[in-house]
């Protein structure tokens, strides 16, 4: 046994290191982002589809914040995606805000504001109520966009959007190179913020609420306000995802509010797994690449295979998939702990 100070102090160190490790970037995570950044140079001809994957990933990440961390199920998350898309499109089209990055933030804030107002509707009730309420909100917003067709273009979509260069300098090209870099940077920044938030005391309280709302209130957590806060943040993220799509495509359409989009994002998140933030990103990658491959194979029936995969995932259960991956995560863990300069000092579990 190594020399240890008194047991109390040792325990304190262990508790602190447990909490710190919980927040530390693991090598697998770093590798993920290195590969994501490298993809910009590795696959220049794939930038359009990669941009789409980033946007789906960000959208699914926004859903993970409420579903994976706070246990709020939604079948209308496209409400905020569409709202952000139209906000960014209209801001550019009518020249209200010409700088795309500023417009992106404004679109996100607008979606967050609507998220805040509608969050009070999802506080109460069962999952079924929440499904219906969120679905209803998406229908309402989509119909509003349809109704004001003289400014939104109605069913034809918002056309004639012209996006000015990013930061006055980087023109969005038709090959999507700048668009991809833009989407990737936005995704990364928002991911880092979300990662931080879910590991904060606030994020921990959300997980507690998802696990046991009764006990959460009994330790002094203002359950409803926490849910309002995360729903608002999630709506803002979804709005930014929508705005990114509108800006990179210079177009917005009513489809962006649709139930198909809401259910697709749910599907993506479930493919990748809820409650660990990467689920949305990995799900988006798998979903979009599968869609690409399968629709080449069978242009009309690719959803058959997606459906099959979904059923297989849900029936098999994520735990089992987690067990298959266990050796990989263990290896990563060991690499993280490996300190060549202090031989065999890796913390081991204390003897009983």
């Amino acid at each position, binding site marked *: 046994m190594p020399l240890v100070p008194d047991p*109390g102090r040792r*325990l*304190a160190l*262990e*508790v*602190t290191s*447990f*909490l*710190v490790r*919980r*927040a530390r970037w693991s090598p697998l995570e770093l590798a993920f982002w290195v590969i994501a950044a490298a993809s910009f140079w590795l696959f220049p001809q794939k930038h359009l589809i990669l941009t789409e994957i980033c946007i789906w990933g960000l959208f699914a990440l926004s859903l993970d914040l409420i579903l994976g961390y706070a246990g709020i199920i939604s079948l209308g998350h496209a409400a905020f995606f569409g709202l952000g898309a139209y906000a960014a499109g209209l801001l550019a089209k009518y020249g209200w805000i010409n700088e795309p990055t500023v417009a992106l933030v404004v679109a996100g804030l607008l979606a967050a504001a609507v998220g805040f107002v509608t969050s009070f509707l999802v506080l109460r009730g069962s999952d079924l109520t929440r499904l219906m309420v969120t679905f209803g909100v998406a229908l309402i917003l989509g119909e509003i966009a349809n109704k004001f067709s003289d400014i939104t273009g109605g069913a034809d979509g918002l056309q004639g959007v012209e996006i000015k260069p990013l930061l006055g300098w980087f023109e969005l090209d038709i090959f999507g190179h700048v668009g991809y870099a833009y989407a990737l940077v936005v995704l990364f920044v928002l991911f880092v913020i979300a990662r*931080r*938030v879910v*590991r*904060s*005391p*606030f*994020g*921990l*309280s959300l*997980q*507690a609420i998802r*696990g*046991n709302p*009764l*006990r959460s*209130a*009994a*330790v*002094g*957590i*203002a*359950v409803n*306000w*926490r849910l309002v*806060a995360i729903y608002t943040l999630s709506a803002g993220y979804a709005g930014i995802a929508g705005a990114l799509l509108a800006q990179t495509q210079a177009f917005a359409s009513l489809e962006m509010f649709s139930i198909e989009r809401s259910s697709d994002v749910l599907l993506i998140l479930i493919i990748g797994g809820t409650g660990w933030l990467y689920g949305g990103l990995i799900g988006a990658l798998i979903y979009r690449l599968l869609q690409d491959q399968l629709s080449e194979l069978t242009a009309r029936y690719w959803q058959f295979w997606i459906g099959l995969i979904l059923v297989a995932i849900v029936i098999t259960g994520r735990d089992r998939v987690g067990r298959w991956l266990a050796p990989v995560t263990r290896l990563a863990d060991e690499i993280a702990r490996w300190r060549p300069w202090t031989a065999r000092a890796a913390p081991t579990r*204390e003897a*009983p």
Partner: protein
Amino acid sequence: MAPVLETRGLDKHFGGIVAANEVSLKIEKGARHALIGPNGAGKTTVVNLLTGVLRPTAGKILLDGEDITNLPSHERVRLGVARTFQINQLFADLTPIETLGLAISERLGRGHDWWRIVGSDPSVTNEIVELIERFRLGDVMRERTGILPYGKQRLLEIALAIACKPRVLLLDEPAAGVPEDERHDILATVEALPKDVTVLLIEHDMDIIFSFADRISVLVNGSLFVEGEPDEVARDPRVKAVYLGETFDG
């Protein structure tokens, strides 16, 4: 002495069922007060009313003379009323470290801190360590709560209430379901609570009650039946009748 916690004519009806009927309790500061009664007497209902899980049909609840009848649960916790549950109510996916860290952060008003990392604050970690030592949870502190042995979960259940640093602690059958040889651990932690913490204990086990309580209220069919010092209550023929009656009922 003024009571810390007081109820005045508390009623709770569920449809036609009267779960609490004109319950007027006074709990003195620092008391070790036991609330006993046969199954279905409404003891847990009283705790749920006191903590805001249920709203009374009629009546008032006062904490230090202030009306808290309409305050939501979490605000009562902030005013110093904490509880444990008869059936464990824990966070299955969190570890004991996280569970306690959560409650302590909330109490220190850091709960809505969305930027700092849990554990970056030494005042929180120090308290976590103190509770883990006191409740001997060190060997399981990194495990998911959901997979812990029942006795450990029961200890965490109580540790979590104490992490709220209550002035008034409501214990709803703290030793329920705990095997005989582990009960002592749990009761010892309850007995070691500082004297200025007021405790309302709900319990079935008469040995525990008579060794712990300095005052006993008996609840029968939602109404307060008898109240007094332990030996007074023990001698009361009506109490005997109720408990004997229950035994005969099976």
